[in-house]
């Protein structure tokens, strides 16, 4: 079988999503970002909303998300993406607006912005990548770093007496009346990827219904920051991260019984 034969259309079992650009990704091999980008690109393409979607990228590893998905993008200051999204959605209510934020951006410097966007019930989608570490600046502690986890600023492990406790953002914001859909997913197996994709699709669909903010947390790996191989990182995530950040839906106002 020569190359030409392999590349026949009927033999294609997988192709790059139409909305992923040809730019070479800067993410480390094994990083979860690439998979999540792919899912967002597929959802936007499948929903046919490329021309009405505005993405807002954070500061952190995914600052360059705008290089990879073929839509209009705004690049926010550190932590402020929900503020940009708020104004964008309110001024352009017919657009689909999403932020893409890591745990340093959303759960540390940007807590005020995310909490208040949730509280106001902005009709936006938030994709929250939680890998428990600052990737871009070289592996420092994040608000979501687990107790005992070693980072460059907790070289002996996170000690709650010194560093406090991990923040469980998705559960916190589930108590805010402005949130419509909150789920926690991962992308470490094919099955998990499929579930994460339908969660992202649901979040975009909910944002069209004007029922409040939709929040998809993706518990992720940072094998470089964690100093592990991609395979070991996935294993470590399942054994440790999932205990603190269990996978599954946390809130769905269209499904849940009304609060008593």
């Amino acid at each position, binding site marked *: 079988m020569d190359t030409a034969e392999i590349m026949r259309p009927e033999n294609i079992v997988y192709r790059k999503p139409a909305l992923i650009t040809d730019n070479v990704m800067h993410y480390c091999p094994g990083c979860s970002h690439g998979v999540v980008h792919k899912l967002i690109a597929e959802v936007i393409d499948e929903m046919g909303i490329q021309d009405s979607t505005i993405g807002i990228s954070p500061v952190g590893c995914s600052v360059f998300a705008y290089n990879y998905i073929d839509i209009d993008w705004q*690049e926010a200051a550190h932590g402020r993406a929900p503020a940009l999204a708020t104004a964008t959605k309110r*001024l352009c209510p017919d657009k689909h607006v999403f932020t893409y934020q890591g745990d340093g951006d959303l759960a540390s410097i940007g807590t005020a912005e995310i909490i208040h966007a949730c509280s106001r019930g902005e009709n936006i989608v938030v994709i929250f990548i939680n890998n428990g570490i600052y990737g871009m600046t070289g592996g420092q502690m994040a608000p979501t770093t687990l107790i005992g986890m070693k980072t460059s600023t907790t070289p002996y492990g996170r000690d709650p007496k010194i560093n406090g406790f991990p923040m469980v953002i998705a559960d916190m914001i589930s108590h805010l009346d402005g949130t419509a859909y909150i789920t926690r997913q991962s992308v470490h197996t094919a099955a998990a990827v499929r579930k994460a994709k339908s969660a992202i699709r649901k979040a975009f669909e909910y944002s069209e219904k004007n029922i409040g903010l939709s929040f998809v947390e993706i518990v992720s790996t940072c094998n470089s920051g964690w100093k592990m191989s991609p395979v070991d990182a996935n294993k470590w995530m399942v054994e440790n991260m999932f205990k603190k950040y269990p996978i599954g839906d946390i809130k769905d106002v269209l499904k849940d019984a009304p609060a008593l």
Partner: protein
Amino acid sequence: MAEKILMKGNEAIAISAIRNGVDGYFGYPITPQSEVMETLMKERPWLTTGMVVLQAESETSSINMIYGGACCGKKVMTSSSSPGVSLMCEGISYMAGAELPCVVVDVMRGGPGLGTIQPSQSDYNMIVKGSGHGDFHNIVIAPASAQDMYDFVDWGFELAFRYRNPVVILADGIIGQMMEKVEMHEQKPRRTAEEILRDAPWATTGKPASRPRNIITSLSLDSDIQEVFNRKLAVKYAEIEANEVKYTEYLTDDAEYLFVAFGCSSRICEAAVDELREAGIRAGMLRPVTLYPYPFARIEELAGKMKSIMSVELNLGQMVDDVRLAVKGTCPVGFYGRQGGNIFTPEEITDAFKKFNNLK
């Protein structure tokens, strides 16, 4: 006939925003400018023009909301007072770096720190020289009346969109709180989606198949690319400096002594000029209306004819540095100021003037 209404400078900002078809206002309460958002909330322009008005959770958030709105090519603005504007500096720098148009109103109060809530002009250096990290300028316009507050909103947006640059209306507690007669024009419509596509083809309006994606960012990481961008900004600033300098003069034709004052100080100075003229002293005044770009050339030209020049400001002496730069040592430059929210009287200014010039 134009409608004439008695209103505060702060109210004039709000009413002007509505009448000029501004798309969005995002702000946070702080004295002495809270009437801007209060007036907008009372007027409810979302029911008439469709203008969005939102009380944000902080000044940090307000400025980033207008960052988002400006990315969409919308006419968006915020207002605050000194401590709140300090918080906005990060966002202003990002907007300068992303070349976004916006209007920010600073109704200055006494500082540093929490300071006082009384009028001051002590943000001159922050706004004219800095307002955030990096190599950039705001276009800065300084109103001296409630009518200016009304008129400068439209002018501010015109400049902001012409140069894709943040514009700061640098006002103070007097101009914000004082009521005066304001002449208002007819309601102008907000720009349509088509007009935004025409005027702001760079905006994030949703990527159609017909164009590449629009990305609004201030990040480059590559020094050479960043340097090219910085030099592009320099060209823009040179154009602004060549075309947009604005000032007014009062009795300068035969003057031997010159005052330089902006904003509310210029009005008090005008009264001081009148008093000195009555005493037979030929004083005059120049009021910079744009603080960036600054009227360096005109002050230099006038300096050649003056026995001395005095800068009069509600601070410890900030604009006086620019006056000295303009004068280039050709005549003595003095300074008189009050601080902390205190306001000088015309008499205080004439006394300081006489002392500086050894006049009786």
